[in-house]
């Protein structure tokens, strides 16, 4: 099993969710986050005060998949979240040791 963490543009969330549903992913976790990468921030002006805002709002999507669905999931996210411009985000993949469904006690891929 693998845990995919994708940082995406906020307005791409619905497309990413749909793309993942199409390949059979049954659940995701979403968090509103801020961060910076290659995309530059912006300047805000409040009367005489000028602030450079480096941290931009992004959405973090976490999705756990069986190892054999990893490539499909990555492709779905990349296709749906991309615009081709700087600021599209990143996808991180880590190995997932165990998954337990709290209600039933199922473990491993059955719990996904």
């Amino acid at each position, binding site marked *: 099993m693998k845990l995919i963490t994708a940082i995406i543009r906020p307005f791409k969330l619905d497309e990413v969710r749909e793309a993942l549903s199409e390949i059979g992913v049954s659940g995701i976790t979403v968090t509103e986050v801020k961060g910076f990468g290659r995309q530059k921030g912006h300047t805000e002006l409040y*009367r*005489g*005060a000028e602030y450079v805002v480096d941290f931009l709002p992004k959405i973090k999507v976490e999705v756990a998949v069986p190892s054999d669905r990893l490539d499909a999931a990555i492709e779905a996210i990349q296709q749906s979240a991309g615009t081709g411009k700087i600021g599209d985000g990143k996808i991180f993949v880590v190995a997932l040791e165990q998954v337990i469904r709290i209600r039933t006690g199922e473990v491993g891929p059955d719990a996904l």
Partner: protein
Amino acid sequence: MTTATLTGPRAAARTPVHTLRALLLGALLTFGAFGAIAQDTAAQDTDATAASADTAVPAEMAAPAEAAPAETTAEAVAAEAAADDADASQAPAPSADKGDTAWLMVCAALVIFMTLPGLALFYGGMVRSKNVLSVLMQCLVVFSLVAVLWALYGYSLAFTPGNAFIGGFDRLFAKGLDASALGATFTKGVYIPELVFFIFQGAFACITCALIVGAFAERVKFAGVLVFTVIWFTFAYTPMAHMVWFFPGPDAFTDADAAAAATAASGYLWAKGALDFAGGTVVHINAAVAGLVGAYVVGPRVGYRKEAIKPHNLTQTMVGAAILWFGWFGFNAGSALEANGVAALALVNTFLATSAAVLAWTAAEWIVRGKPSMLGGASGAVAGLVAITPAAGLVGLMGAIALGAIAGVVCFWGVSGLKKLLGADDSLDVFGVHGVGGILGAVLTGVFAAPALGGAGLWDYVTETGVAEYSIASQVWIQFQGVLVTVLLSGVVSLVAFMIVKYTVGLRVNEDAEREGLDIASHGEAAYEH
């Protein structure tokens, strides 16, 4: 007869009460054993009501220096006393004009609405979310504190006869301030209940003190604000109101000699002929200087110019600015003290100057900074409102637009270029907007009030007509003196008051409390669930 002694700022001065209380009481008392001191001239024959009103001064107030109109013709007293008794007994007692009364009561509520919630929201939106309640609370409690002080002694010090700089104690603890007491307007023989004048003026005192808190928001100690407010209100606000607005009322201006005496009994700046229709000096410059001194003495916020200290809710600020504008119609148009053409002029100027200032600030910011901001637009509105305040009923429509436009641009500089020069962390730009806009408005009132520029010019209270001659240069000089007196008085009183607070209850919270936010640290609550 010189212009200086015969004419005065029309509607610039607020009415005193002394004479009017005198006339009502006098009219009643003449039936009894008290001898009314009579003062009168030819007018008596043609207008019995006005004459008796002018002249009757009850014995209880007989301190000669205070009995402004009576004093001037004391020699006539004996000869005319009998006749006057007769006149007074036949004349109907003066009564309040119902239309003016209704209008002023509405205006008083409008001015109160400016502070609560207008100013509170305007300020609250500009601070960080951890401090919004502290600012709302400061506005609410300062308002309430000043309202009570106004009744205890503030009104008396501001609006009863005293010397040129401060009033007396005739109305201490609101003595004699009952439903039957009358206050003057700017027209002879037209009165409003003194209680209405009391609350209208009280609302001004409240917002002036509340304005100051914006300058040291986000780090000031709550108790410090309250102690400062008591000292500053007593020694800066009440004398300024007295100096600028106190005069013995139009009824005292019966002829040249009476006018000279009445002017001599007026506030220092009123007697000089300084024009301040609705409080550019008393309210805005006064509060702004206090704020600036406070910003220096309290010191900058932790992280100022190092961390991003951003407004947390500019929607609130926009709503607050809009409420301020709405309430300001009462502030400016109500300052005519009557529901008449002057009030209408002030109303329209409040509409136009503000709009011109919004456009000017927005254009300036758009050109200089690249983007027209919402905060800039709202700030422009307040700058325009501040600038038109002293001029509201005195300038023409085109003058108002010009005044507003100039204020929009100059106040934009006030919160950017000037702020850098001054170096103080005036959190919400009280000086940049109210100080700069107030000074600009006060000085430019001297320009745009000129009849040649569509203004109303000066007013002759004796003949109740406008004065033809008007010198822009000399009026601007008088206006400048008004500004100077305000800056000096408020500056000195503020500095002393802040020092007293600093070494007694303390002026600012400790750094941990400031980091945590005043809402939690000082008030034990949070505005928002995150």
